[in-house]
C-alpha cells in the first residue's frame, strides 16, 4: 500500500477514536451534571413537602410552578397498602397530577422496599423525572400523624433536548474535525513524500548503461536531502567501480591486440614465406587459428565494453538482404556437410542501421547454430508491413527451455561447461542482443529439443522519408515458393553464383 494512504488511514483511525472518546466523555459528563441538577431540584422540592415542620400546604406553595406532585395517604395499619396493587389504590390526598398511575410497578416496589424511588418517565420533550419517598403527614387535630407517600415530578424535557442538541453538535464537530484532519494528513503526506517520489523517479532512470543520472538534492538539510546525498554517493561509487571494470576490459582487450596481431602475423609469415615441413605447417596453423580466435574474443570484449559505455551505432539506410548475403559469404570454414542457405523473396529489405554490425548479428547467429551442431542452417529475410524479419533456423539439438532465458548472457553456455566447442567466444549472442537493441529491434527465440532452433530478428522497416532517393514503388508479389536468392556454402566452399565471371 502507498505510504501516503497508510499514513492517512492510520492517523485517520487514530484521530477518529480520540475524537469519539472525547465526544462521548463530553456527552456523558454533561448528561451527568444535568441529571444531578435535576435530581437536586427534585430532592429540594421533596424536602419542602416532607419537612414536617411546616404544614403541607405551605410546602406545596414553595414548589416551583412547573413541578408535578402527588401526596398519597397510605394508611395505618398499612397491611393492604404494602402490596403494589394496594399501594396504587391508596387515597390521593393532594395532587396536581396522577403521578402514581404512571409509575411502573418495579418503581413502586422499590418505594415500598426502600422507602424511596427515582425513575424517569416518558421520552423526548415529555420526559419527567419522578422521585418518591415515604414519610408521615400531620392529619387533622385528632388524627395524629398518618403514613404518606410523596411523589414529585420535575419536567426533564429541556434537559433531553439539550442533550440531543449536544449529541448532534458533537457528532458534527467530530465528523468535521475527522475530515479536516484526514485531508490535512493526506496533503501533508503528499508534501512530505513528494521529494521522496522525485528521488525514486530519478533513481529509476539510473540503469546499467546509464549510471550518470543523479537524484535531485533539495536545499533544506532534512532527511530527504540526506537520502538524496546518500543515494548519489552510492551512485558515484557504483559508477566508479563500473567504469573501472569497463575500462579494465577495454584496456586489457586493447593491450592484447598488439601481441595477438604479432603472433598471427609471424605464424602466417612462417607458413606462407618459408618452407615448413607438414608437421610444422599443422602446428603453425594451430597457432594462427588460435591467435585469430583470440583476436575475435578481444574484439567481442571491446564491442561489449563499448556497449557498456553507452556507445550508439551509426545508422544509414541498409539493405538487410545484402547484409545477409555478405554474412553468409564471410562465414569462416564450415564443418564438412554443413550447409547454410539464404532465402529472400525480394532483393530489398531496408532498415536504418549499421551494416557491419547487422552483418555481425547474422554471422553470430549462424555461427552459433553451427557451433551447436547444426548441419543445415536456413536464413530467411522478409520485408513485412512495418518490419524486416530475419529468421535463422537450424536443425540442431535445440535449447532446453530453462536455458533460453539465459542465452543472451555473456559467456553463457547451454551445456554449462566451457567446452570450447567450435570457436565461439561465448559473447556472440550478448553482442547480437546489444546490436539488435541499438536498432530498436527484438530477438525472440523458439526452440524445441531434438528439432532445432529459430532465432528471429525483427527490425523496424526503414522510414521512407529517411531516403531522399528511394521512391516507394509498389512491388509485385513474388511467389514465395520460388525463392530465388540461394547460397549454399558447403565445406567452406562459399560461392556466389552471379557476377563471378566479372571478377578475376
Amino acid at each position: 500500500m502507498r505510504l501516503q494512504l497508510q499514513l492517512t488511514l492510520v492517523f485517520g483511525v487514530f484521530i477518529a477514536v480520540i475524537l469519539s472518546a472525547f465526544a462521548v466523555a463530553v456527552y456523558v459528563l454533561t448528561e451527568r451534571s444535568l441529571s444531578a441538577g435535576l435530581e437536586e431540584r427534585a430532592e429540594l422540592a421533596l424536602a419542602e413537602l416532607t419537612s414536617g415542620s411546616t404544614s403541607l400546604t405551605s410546602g406545596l406553595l414553595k414548589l416551583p410552578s412547573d413541578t408535578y406532585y402527588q401526596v398519597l395517604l397510605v394508611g395505618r395499619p398499612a397491611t393492604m397498602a404494602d402490596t403494589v396493587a394496594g399501594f396504587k389504590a391508596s387515597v390521593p390526598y393532594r395532587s396536581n397530577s396522577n403521578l402514581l398511575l404512571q409509575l411502573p410497578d418495579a418503581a413502586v416496589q422499590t418505594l415500598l422496599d426502600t422507602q424511596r424511588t427515582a425513575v424517569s418517565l416518558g421520552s423526548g420533550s415529555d420526559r419527567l423525572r419522578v422521585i418518591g419517598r415515604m414519610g408521615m403527614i400531620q392529619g387533622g387535630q385528632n388524627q395524629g400523624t398518618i403514613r404518606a407517600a410523596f411523589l414529585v415530578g420535575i419536567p426533564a424535557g429541556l434537559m433531553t433536548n439539550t442533550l440531543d442538541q449536544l449529541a448532534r453538535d458533537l457528532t458534527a464537530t467530530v465528523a468535521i474535525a475527522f475530515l479536516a484532519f484526514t485531508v490535512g494528513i493526506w496533503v501533508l503526506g503528499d508534501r512530505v513524500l513528494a521529494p521522496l517520489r522525485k528521488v525514486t523517479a530519478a533513481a529509476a532512470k539510473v540503469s546499467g548503461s546509464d549510471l550518470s543520472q543523479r537524484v535531485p538534492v533539495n536545499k533544506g538539510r532534512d532527511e530527504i536531502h540526506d537520502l538524496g546525498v546518500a543515494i548519489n554517493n552510492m551512485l558515484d561509487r557504483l559508477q566508479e567501480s563500473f567504469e573501472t571494470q569497463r575500462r579494465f576490459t577495454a584496456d586489457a582487450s586493447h593491450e592484447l591486440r598488439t601481441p595477438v596481431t604479432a603472433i598471427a602475423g609471424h605464424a602466417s609469415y612462417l607458413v606462407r614465406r618459408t618452407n615448413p615441413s607438414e608437421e610444422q605447417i599443422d602446428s603453425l596453423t594451430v597457432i594462427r587459428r588460435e591467435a585469430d580466435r583470440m583476436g575475435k574474443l578481444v574484439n567481442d570484449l571491446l564491442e561489449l565494453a563499448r556497449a557498456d559505455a553507452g556507445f550508439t551505432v551509426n545508422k544509414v539506410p541498409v539493405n538487410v538482404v545484402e547484409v545477409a548475403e555478405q554474412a553468409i559469404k564471410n562465414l569462416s570454414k564450415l564443418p564438412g556437410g554443413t550447409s547454410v542457405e539464404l532465402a529472400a523473396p525480394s532483393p530489398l529489405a531496408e532498415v536504418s542501421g549499421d551494416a557491419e554490425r547487422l552483418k555481425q548479428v547474422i554471422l553470430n547467429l549462424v555461427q552459433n547454430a553451427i557451433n551447436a551442431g547444426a548441419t543445415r542452417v536456413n536464413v530467411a529475410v522478409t520485408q513485412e508491413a512495418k518490419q524486416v524479419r530475419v529468421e535463422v533456423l537450424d536443425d540442431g539439438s535445440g535449447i532446453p527451455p530453462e536455458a533460453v532465458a539465459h542465452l543472451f548472457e555473456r559467456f553463457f553456455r547451454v551445456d554449462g561447461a566451457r567446452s570450447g566447442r567450435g570457436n565461439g567466444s561465448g559473447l556472440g549472442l550478448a553482442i547480437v542482443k546489444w546490436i539488435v537493441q541499438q536498432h530498436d529491434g527484438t530477438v525472440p527465440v523458439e526452440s524445441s529439443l531434438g528439432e532445432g532452433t529459430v532465432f528471429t530478428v525483427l527490425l523496424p522497416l526503414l522510414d521512407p522519408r529517411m531516403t531522399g532517393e528511394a521512391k516507394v514503388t509498389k512491388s509485385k508479389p513474388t511467389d514465395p515458393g520460388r525463392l530465388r536468392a540461394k547460397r549454399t556454402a558447403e565445406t567452406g566452399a562459399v560461392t556466389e553464383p552471379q557476377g563471378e565471371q566479372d571478377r578475376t
Partner: protein
Amino acid sequence: MMPAMERRPLILIVEDEKEIAKFIDLELQAENYETVVSYDGVTGLSKFRELNPDLVVLDLMLPVLDGLEVARRIRKTSNTPIIILTAKDAVDDKVTGLDSGADDYLVKPFSIEELLARVRAHLRRVNPAVTGEVRVADLVINLEGREVFRDGRRIELSAKEFELLELFARNPGKVFNRFEIEEKVWPEYTGGSNVVDVYVGYLRRKLEGEGERRLIHTVRGVGYVLREE
C-alpha cells in the same frame, strides 16, 4: 609478386611495436618491396623527408610524436599514400585518421593479406602504368582489386554497390535502363522492386560523401549513366 619495375617501391614502416614491425617488414620484403623501419614518430618523419618513400605504413600510437601528427605533417608537403594501423577502431578515431590525411585505415588485429592488398592498391593508384583501372574525373575504379578511390580517398563499397558501379565503369557513357541493370546485378530476381533506384542512391551517397560532383546521372525516362558531365 610485383611486376618487374625499374626501381622497387620503397615503403616506410613507422611502428613502435617491434614484433609487429618485424613481420610487416618481412612480408613486404617477401613481396619484393624495399623497406625502411622506424620506431617513433620523429624518426619516422625525418626518414620520410630523407628518403621520400612511395608509401607509408603508419601506426597511430607512437612515442614522441603520434601517428596522426606524423600523417598531418607528411600531408603538408606530399601526396604519398599513408596506411594507418591502429588498435583503436571506434568510428571517431577512423574519421580523425582519415581527416589527418591518411588514405587508408586498418585495425589490429588485421590480416597481413589485407594489408598487402591495400599496399598494392595504393601503389597502383599512384602508378598509372598499371591496367585494370577506370577513371572518370577524380573517380578511380580498380576492377581487379575491386577498389574505388575518389580524389585519393578510399571508398568502401558493399558487394552489390561495387557490382553496380562496375557495370557502369565497364561501359562508361552508356545509358542503362533499370531493367538491364536489375538483370545484370540481381539476375536471380524477377523484378518489380525499386532495388536499382535504392542502390544508385547508396552509391551516390558514398561517392559524393564530401560534397563532390555527381558522376552517376539520371537520364530522365531511360535510366542511369556514369560520365563526367
